[in-house]
């Protein structure tokens, strides 16, 4: 069995508490019906969101399992020959891709750089000067005909567009969501 198929039903097995344990990684339940922890998104809901919001199909996440650690922070882990237990007490398990604690779910910069190349919608491509301002953490006025909310921001590098990070677009303004530690003045 691939780890990515998610032994989500296992969440109802013994030894699991019904509350989110902030310092532990818990495998997402496969569907909402198998949910034990209130408010925890299911794997199905996460995959559906990526497809609806960005056109990133569920096949992209085949071979990966999804985990929650900290309220609403979703991590993605590559499959191993032996699937990990449904609860893993470690410092990190793969990388973060999504935050689900607010009303509007927000992908991470790392997640967008890693998986955003598969996106077919809600990708805003900037020119070099706009990309500079974005990477520096600034907000800027610009036109955009698509959905408001969290967008994948891309720009061209070495001849092809490449996802760079996450921007929040509302009322003609793009707000950079680049984390402080990754901002640069280029």
């Amino acid at each position: 069995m691939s780890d990515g198929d998610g032994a989500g039903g296992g969440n109802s097995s013994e030894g699991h508490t019904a509350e989110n344990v902030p310092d532990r990684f818990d495998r997402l339940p496969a569907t909402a019906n198998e949910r034990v922890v209130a408010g925890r998104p299911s794997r199905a809901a996460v995959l559906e969101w990526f497809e609806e919001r960005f056109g990133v199909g569920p096949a992209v996440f085949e071979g990966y399992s999804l985990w929650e650690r900290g309220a609403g922070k979703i991590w993605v882990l590559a499959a191993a020959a032996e699937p990990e237990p449904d609860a893993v007490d470690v410092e990190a398990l793969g990388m973060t891709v999504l935050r689900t604690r607010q009303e509007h779910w927000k992908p991470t910069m790392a997640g967008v750089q890693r998986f955003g190349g598969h996106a077919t919608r809600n990708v805003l491509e900037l020119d070099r000067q706009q990309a500079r301002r974005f990477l520096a953490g600034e907000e800027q006025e610009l036109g955009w005909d698509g959905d408001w909310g969290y967008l994948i921001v891309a720009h061209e590098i070495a001849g092809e567009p490449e996802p760079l990070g996450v921007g929040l677009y509302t009322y003609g303004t793009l707000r950079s969501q680049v984390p402080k530690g990754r901002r640069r003045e280029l």
Partner: protein
Amino acid sequence: MDVLGRYEPLVEDIDAFRAACGRPLPSVVRVNTLRTSVERASAALEEAGLAPEPTDWHPGLLRLSGQPGANWPYAHGWLHGQEEVSAVPARVLDPQPGEVVWDATAAPGSKTTQLAALMGDEGRVVATDNNIGRVAALRSNTERLGVTNTAVTTEDARNHSLKPFAHGAYDRALVDAPCSCEGTVRKNPDALAEWTFEHVEGVAAVQKGVLRRAVQATREGGTVVYSTCTFAPEENEAVVDHVLGEEDCRPVEVDLPLSHTNGVTGWQDETYDERLTRAARIYPHHNDTGGFFCVKLEVTG
């Protein structure tokens, strides 16, 4: 104290050795092949005016004309700044996609992320460090480079526990041990100013414990690589010699495409296992890099 002078009996061309130790290091990056191709990263570095020059022994390891951390390919997670010689141990370990690998002393993650890349991000890397601040740096590097096959644990590697995980013994383990860092003098001149023999002795005891745990946690027929960035035989051959006496393992030949000399079988009043000639000592004047020690062990029990 003249720390480098200690190694006059070991180093053939002591003047070239001292001269190289006094020069600054070239700026080097490793292309993160999980995210882009070497060709595309090189093109982006050309665009940034950094004149990338490939090294002749490791694909995607590029020497630059300027600093590696402030350019577009870096912002995209395509690059990791990594001293050339620090790319050696992961190559010697040679992990394969799908294997289970332990990086016993992992922070800040240069080798961890290199291992993941060599494995095509498949299988599992467990990256351990005991220092919470350094683990934060490790975490930010796995995140920035988009590594998904790695779990991070904060613990003393000497007591590493497999309990959180599904896997049993590891296929391979890397012990790139904390050390007195004499070989990093080109990057950090203070490395020698702060040198004391007491520190060498203390850190050697830790090195022995970590290497023993790595051999224990690796399956029979598996591989353990031990490396340091220091010249002191007390932290290199002596550590391995000790572990050869305590655990089931043997040194094997290393096919290393960089100039080096063999490990030593004696130092001051000590003698070491004859098979330690299979270890590699890289001095700064050999390849215009930092200094390094590396040995490959096969687990036999």
